[in-house]
């Protein structure tokens, strides 16, 4: 297997930032990386995509925060986290000291929040770039989610791109819960996004047959896991065919190297593994190995050759 692997050049990049592996964590599915240390070599994966951080520390929502669903799960964490100060003081240094690359996910409820976060992250050691989680309610527009409105999404991305470290690629993370994901993708790339992360969770709901009420404290939650993989692949496919030049960080139900391969063939130049980590904490390393082997078996000399190959 090892020989098979080393035959394939697995290096790729996030915008301008080179990474040795196309396999990354997914925001919110590996916290800030520490807990995976017993299971994965974090310096070998592409990057740790950190849990979306906001300006202030957040408690997150009351429990229950999750429900298992067929081949997936529903979550409603409410972005529990330390806030940007805690991130800069504790989490990012821990990763930097160990030589682990971080791709920092930022979130907010106002355009200015996003911009301020981007500014605070300028020049921070170990930070490769930013993933902008626009699947958040926009307080200035009756709580409509930024990602569901091409204009609001573009405003956020433009503000972040302007405020961010010029060396930091800015990826906009898209929601699949839209009528036309290509128009959102086009709008945010026009606004300066260097790449696109897709997909975030689908809005879902589960009712507890015993209490006869929604399981989640937040009523609705985000659906993730292999159940959503066909939707994620469709989004990556549509956006790559419309905007072939835009790098895509693909995710949504990736559990194996062959799942990751589907995303690469559809147009993703890197992938995030989220829910699968809950099932298998060593999924990241395993998927890297399986993907390398799958590429070798198919005669690819490098990962980049396979990106978008299914559109040929």
């Amino acid at each position: 297997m090892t020989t098979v692997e080393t035959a394939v050049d697995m290096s790729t990049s996030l915008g301008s930032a080179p990474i040795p592996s196309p396999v990354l964590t997914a925001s919110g599915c590996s916290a800030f990386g520490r807990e995976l240390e017993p299971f994965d070599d974090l310096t070998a994966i592409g990057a740790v995509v950190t849990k979306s951080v906001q300006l202030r520390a957040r408690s997150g929502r009351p429990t229950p925060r999750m429900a298992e669903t067929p081949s997936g799960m529903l979550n409603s964490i409410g972005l529990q986290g330390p806030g940007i100060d805690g991130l800069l003081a504790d989490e990012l240094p821990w990763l930097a000291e160990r030589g682990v690359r971080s791709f920092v996910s930022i979130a907010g409820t106002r355009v200015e929040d996003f911009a301020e976060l981007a500014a605070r992250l300028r020049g921070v050691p170990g930070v490769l770039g930013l993933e902008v989680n626009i699947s958040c309610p926009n307080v200035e527009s009756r709580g409509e989610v930024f990602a569901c409105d091409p204009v609001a999404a573009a405003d956020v991305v433009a503000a972040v791109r302007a405020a961010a470290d010029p060396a930091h690629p800015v990826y906009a993370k898209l929601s699949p819960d839209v009528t036309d994901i290509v128009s959102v993708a086009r709008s945010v790339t026009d606004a300066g996004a260097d790449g696109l992360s897709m997909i975030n969770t689908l809005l879902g709901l589960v009712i507890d047959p015993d209490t006869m009420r929604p399981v989640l404290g937040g009523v609705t939650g985000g659906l993730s896991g292999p159940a959503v993989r066909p939707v994620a692949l469709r989004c990556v496919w549509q956006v790559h065919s419309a905007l072939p030049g835009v790098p895509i960080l693909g995710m949504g139900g990736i559990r194996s190297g062959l799942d990751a391969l589907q995303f690469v063939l559809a147009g993703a130049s890197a992938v995030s593994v989220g829910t699968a980590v809950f099932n298998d904490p060593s999924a990241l390393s395993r998927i890297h190995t399986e993907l390398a082997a799958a590429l070798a078996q198919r005669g690819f000399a490098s990962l980049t050759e396979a990106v978008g190959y299914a559109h040929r």
Partner: protein
Amino acid sequence: MSALLTSPAPRAANPPVQRVVEVVARRPVNAYVELTLAAPEIADRAEPGQFVAFAIGGETSAMLLRRSIAIAGTADGVVTVVVAPHGPGSTWLAALQVGERVDVVGPLGRPFPLPEPGVPALVVGGGYGAAALVGLAARLGESGSAVAAVTGAASADRLCSVDELGEVASPVAVTTDDGSAGRRGWVTDAVAELIGDAGVVYACGPMAMLRAVAGAATAAGIPSYVAVEESMACGIGVCMTCVLPVIGEDGRTRFSRSCAEGPVFGGDRVRFADVGTLPWDVVGADAMGVVAP
């Protein structure tokens, strides 16, 4: 600055491992099933109070989330767990046969902190929760503590590890809600009688029981440690689904992860009454729009 009787449980000494292990023994115990797994690396690392997390149903399973199960005992190279068939996941686990293999991660979570040598202890188990206390009671005995035990359940068939506790604790008081075994009533009745002799209390079982036992201990000015059961998606600390409002060293309440900061918490640190709510004084509640009354 905190006036509480307990300090937060310290981290475990060893990190967890992930292994595919073989079931080497299977024994129905009343309403439960006791599984023994050949898992030397987990057995060597485990401390009382920790748990393991099993993958369910194999490659083609529609159930992605691991199921957390307390470690009931460890002996040379093997780990024992007691499974109560409940929903699909635990039912699948309980149906595992000798020779079958299962993917398990562990040991996970923080163990029960041990008292100063010689401090008399009371261990209280509800239902299958009693199993997790056998190893603890033995460890306490070795370090010179007198150990009393209370174990209770709804009915006789839901009792667990009574004999095993008998070997490492005395007295062992047994209660059942319906009186089908031991004394009729709740563990708290027996606890009330035995708590006076205890310097520390340990409990494992349903949340309602933990709340009652912790309350009794705190009221008596005795430190208590409880192993909680919260719904967990990952078991290793990365998903944030398993949180409870817990009072920290600094006296401030945070949503703490049962799998990483727990499952063992100081009984006087878990805000049982607030579980499932977002109290205004939880760190970061303000950012959620919750305002002080």
